[in-house]
């Protein structure tokens, strides 16, 4: 329901944009609208007992078709020689539902050839591929390495950015600062939205490809935990670097991200800090590009134990305060100092159950909660993977991709799986990507 409301709002925005274009028929004739598009269709198979966060979506489970199904349509038009308009509609298939989004919708003011100011709906450039993560044709993999592209906001935002190109000899340095409001996003496992996020993306283009660095800060994000519906505040910082290089036929792509999330009011987490990275090596052989990717994601969670959560819920109950009032000062002190020991006292147990604060079965479960960790989320994972891939340029603007992937969740983590995975999960993906 929430999603469809969001959709309608976006359509309204796009409709306004389109009617603006339609309102200037003379210019429209002189500056025809350019239409471009892209599409991907995929098939995934292997050990799919548990579905997983692929970066942009949750895929896997029993559905093997439709994992990477995407279609995008883009319109572009020059309003005059300094102003242009771009709109991009994106339809994505995720297992049993399709979403339709106005992914990009912005006005571009470019007073000079090296300066562009864009306002409207833009996409966060958190990682190297983030802005075109749905355009499979633009990169060698079936999908970008999930260890790096999960647990970060990969969304559109409403705001403004600037693209300034500085020429340094024969090389270019592109500076892209941005700021805006980031709408609700669930690809970090929590529904969050922010009033203000700011960031800076810099790209250095040179003979062998490009290097990039990105920093981003979001403050005072409000959100709700989908499992409990409780509200919280999140602050986040992210720093990422990357390289996309070609030396003759050798392709080298690598990225690294360091991220920190701080939560206030979200029960199980107070802080998540993590890092992730990958290295892709490929070798072009005519129409074929075989490649191998090593990826790793390691996030540490300052996680409150399930026991603390349960005790927190119990002590927040007004009935509990009333019950405390009936105890002697010494008993109150004992309960506060070591709740587990005090809860083993039959008199306390009878009192709590009698006051309706806990049930006998809940009381029995308390000691076992001490060692139990809460389920992982895409924010908190430890995982490594190795991927062997082959991209084949079948026809012009059509690429076929085959991939074999071995994924290992590390330590106690479930990795990026939504339920406990096998020791080593083996997956094969087949994707066809086109642009037009």
């Amino acid at each position, binding site marked *: 329901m929430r999603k469809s409301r969001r959709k309608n709002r976006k359509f309204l925005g796009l409709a306004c944009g389109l009617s603006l274009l339609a309102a200037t028929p003379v210019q429209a004739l002189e500056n025809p609208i*350019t239409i*471009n598009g*892209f599409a991907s269709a995929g098939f995934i198979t292997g050990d799919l007992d548990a579905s997983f966060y692929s970066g942009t979506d949750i895929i896997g489970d029993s559905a093997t078709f439709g994992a990477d199904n995407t279609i*995008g349509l*883009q319109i*572009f038009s020059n309003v005059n020689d300094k102003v242009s308009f*771009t709109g*991009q509609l994106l339809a994505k298939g995720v297992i049993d539902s399709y979403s339709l989004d106005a992914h*990009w919708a*912005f006005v*571009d003011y470019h007073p000079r*050839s*090296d300066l562009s100011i*864009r306002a409207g709906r833009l*996409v966060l450039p958190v990682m190297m591929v983030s*802005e*075109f993560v749905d*355009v499979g*044709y*633009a*990169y060698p993999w079936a999908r970008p390495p999930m260890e790096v592209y999960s647990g970060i906001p990969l969304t559109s935002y409403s705001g403004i950015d600037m*693209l300034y190109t500085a*020429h340094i000899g*024969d090389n*270019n340095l592109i500076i892209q600062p941005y700021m805006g409001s980031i709408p609700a996003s669930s690809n970090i496992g929590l529904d969050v939205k922010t009033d203000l996020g700011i960031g800076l993306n810099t790209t250095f*283009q040179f003979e062998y490809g490009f290097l990039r660095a990105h920093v981003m800060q979001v403050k005072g994000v409000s959100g709700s935990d989908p499992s409990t519906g409780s509200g919280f505040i999140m602050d986040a910082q992210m720093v990422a670097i990357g390289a996309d290089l070609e030396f003759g036929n050798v392709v080298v792509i690598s990225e690294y991200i360091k991220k920190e999330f701080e939560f206030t009011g979200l029960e199980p987490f107070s802080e998540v800090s993590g890092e992730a990275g990958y290295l892709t090596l490929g070798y072009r052989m005519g*129409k074929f590009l075989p490649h191998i990717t090593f990826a790793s994601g390691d996030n540490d969670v300052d996680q409150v134990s399930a026991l603390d959560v349960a005790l927190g819920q119990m002590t927040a109950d007004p009935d509990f305060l009333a019950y405390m009032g009936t105890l002697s000062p010494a008993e109150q002190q004992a309960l506060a100092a070591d709740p587990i020991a005090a809860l083993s006292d039959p008199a306390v147990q009878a009192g709590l159950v009698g006051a309706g604060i806990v049930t006998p079965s809940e009381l029995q479960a308390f000691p076992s909660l001490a060692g139990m960790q809460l389920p992982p989320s895409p924010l908190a994972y430890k995982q490594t993977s190795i991927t062997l891939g082959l991209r084949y*340029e079948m026809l*012009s*603007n059509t*690429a076929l991709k085959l991939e074999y992937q071995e994924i290992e969740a590390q330590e106690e983590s479930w990795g990026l799986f939504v339920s406990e995975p096998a020791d080593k999960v083996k997956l094969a993906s087949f994707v066809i990507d086109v*642009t037009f």
Partner: protein
Amino acid sequence: MKKFIVSIFIIFPLLFLGSASSYAGLVVVVHPANSMQAISKEDLKRIYLSKKKEFSDGSLISPLDHPKDSETKKTFYKKVVGKSLSQVSSYWSRLIFTGKGIPPRVMRGDEEIKVWVAGHPEGIGYINKKSIDDSVKVILTIK
């Protein structure tokens, strides 16, 4: 016999010329009034990848391209940019779908490119050597 050897010496290079005539070379052309007399392959590569957008006098460059899959285009990108057409379209898909760049204007072929360049001082294009005429100025020959 002597006649035969001489005729071989005459015919053989002709045969060679004949086979080479399928690729007689490409030339890069601009408007006759363009002050530019020559261009390096490196600069041309950067213009066609949208990394260089202005002539040295600060005026905007409008590069022109051939239809996709045309042999002329394939040759140009291989020799000048050092990339296959699929690599080039993958490169452009990153720029197009992030609103960061617009690929060169696509024309139908040599004749249309000459007409456009002759009418636009900001134009630059590549055509087959055999299509050269006075309407445009050659600033680079690609061998």
